[in-house]
């Protein structure tokens, strides 16, 4: 039976409550460490930290609008092989989804981790965040969640959520072991805690949090949010499709690309040690460039740009979780997230697959059936 509990909140001081929650987590025998975003002493940045001692939890800040990296990759490094201890990881829903994809790709394991997700309030782009936070990251976080939870939106001080976040129709940690709910919850007084898997329930059982009920209005609020996000997303897809629906337009769209491959480095589900595009396969013989130039009269350098993006889409679009780190990483501000998400949305729909939904669902290209997709066969 799924456990529904609460975390006490005093005067909407969510950060303190969350810190207390983290402290309590660390007190559990089953948990050796927690992975949680914290404000760093240096700069105003918020980064995942691996904490084993409760007195190192002062900067706990999972509600910050900073999202410098997708933590799934970090967690994968921690869980790839048995580490001798269990980690409780507090992450955004898109990070959890990416982590689940990495589990399926054998880059991570679930055995030594309890995934704790929070209703995600979204994040600003890296540069926007710095502008917004200024020198006081903690205050920035409080300003941010108070505004959002009060229904006043995330557009503050001239910055707004990233497009990826605004288009995110899944800001709820449905595939986490434990979910921390904000939406529809009276966050002035408490946070909602939900056990969503046996592992999550076990941990909550041990923690002995006061039990509670899911507020009746929560579902409606979530649905409403999802609907408005979907609308935003679909408009985004429409605009992106219009901007890329032939090779000329796609060329234009990607014209700034300098083959830096940052998008794939930032991508949580691009798990290759080294991208094929930096291997010998694309280390062409010098005579090759001449031949290409000859065939069409001219060739854009560096080559293989569109080829790279299209090929990468065949590799990762079925696993894309829409976190938007690609756009965050692009040095030339190409709206790559819009493009990748659009394609990912379509491919995942084509295979009736939802990235990051469950470790039990096989990735579309890792299975097949005898009698399927007849429509792609024949003339």
């Amino acid at each position, binding site marked *: 039976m799924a456990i529904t509990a609460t975390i006490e909140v005093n005067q909407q001081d969510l950060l303190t409550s969350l810190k207390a929650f983290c402290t309590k987590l660390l007190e559990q025998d089953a948990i050796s460490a927690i992975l949680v975003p914290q404000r760093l002493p240096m700069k105003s940045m918020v980064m995942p930290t691996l904490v084993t001692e409760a007195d190192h939890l002062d900067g706990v800040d999972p509600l910050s609008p900073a999202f410098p990296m997708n933590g799934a990759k970090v967690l994968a490094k921690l869980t790839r092989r048995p580490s001798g201890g269990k980690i409780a990881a507090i992450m955004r829903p898109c990070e959890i989804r990416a982590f689940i994809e990495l589990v399926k790709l054998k880059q991570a394991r679930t055995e030594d981790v309890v995934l704790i997700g929070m209703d995600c309030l979204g994040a600003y782009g890296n540069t926007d965040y710095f502008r917004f936070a200024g020198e006081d990251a903690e205050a920035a976080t409080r300003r941010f969640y108070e505004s959002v939870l009060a229904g006043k939106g995330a557009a503050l001080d001239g910055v707004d959520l990233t497009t990826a976040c605004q288009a995110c129709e899944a800001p709820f940690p449905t595939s986490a072991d434990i979910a921390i709910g904000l939406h529809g919850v009276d966050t002035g007084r408490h946070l909602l805690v939900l056990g969503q898997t046996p592992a999550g329930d076990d941990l909550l059982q041990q923690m002995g949090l006061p039990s509670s009920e899911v507020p009746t209005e929560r579902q409606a609020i979530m649905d409403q949010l999802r609907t408005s996000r979907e609308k935003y997303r679909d408009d985004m897809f429409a605009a992106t499709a219009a901007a890329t629906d032939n090779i000329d337009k796609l060329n234009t769209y990607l014209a700034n690309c300098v083959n830096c491959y940052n998008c794939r480095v930032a991508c949580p589900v691009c798990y290759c040690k080294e991208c094929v595009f930096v291997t010998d396969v694309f280390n062409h013989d010098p005579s090759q460039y001449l031949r290409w130039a000859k065939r069409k009269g001219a060739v854009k350098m560096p080559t293989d740009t569109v080829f790279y993006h299209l090929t990468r889409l065949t590799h990762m*679009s079925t696993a894309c979780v829409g976190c938007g780190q690609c756009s965050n990483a692009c040095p030339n501000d190409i709206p790559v997230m819009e493009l990748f998400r659009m394609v990912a949305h379509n491919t995942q729909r084509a295979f009736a697959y939802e990235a990051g939904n469950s470790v039990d669902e096989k990735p579309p290209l890792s299975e097949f059936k005898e009698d399927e*997709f007849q429509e792609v066969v024949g003339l």
Partner: protein
Amino acid sequence: MENFEPVLVAFVCNWCTYTAADLAGTSRLSYPKNVRLIRVMCTGMVDPQYVIKALLEGADGVLVSGCHPGDCHYINGNYKARRRIKLLKEILPQFGFEPERLRLTWIGASDGIEFAEIMQELVKELKALGPSQAKMKMVV
């Protein structure tokens, strides 16, 4: 357009379709010159990047052709190929590649006539579609 001769790159499996192509050839069946056969061991080894490569480099169409379901020498390579083609058929049309430019067929070893017919039909279709958008573009 009148004299447009499309180029069709065909990845054919060693066991079935290549045999059919060979049979068509030795039986002196006429099939269009526009077909560039690339023999692979199995359709299951056709990496999507090969298809993308061919299309970006100016192929007007790409065909992947192997053994019928149940006939694959390697048991199930053709099923894997079918999923990959499904994936590509989702992705490529979004960027203006008409779905007809990518085809997957099963042509058995003794189907020499069918091979020739399918090639003719494909080339006819490609002619009707006109040159691929990537053909003369400066993209690699």
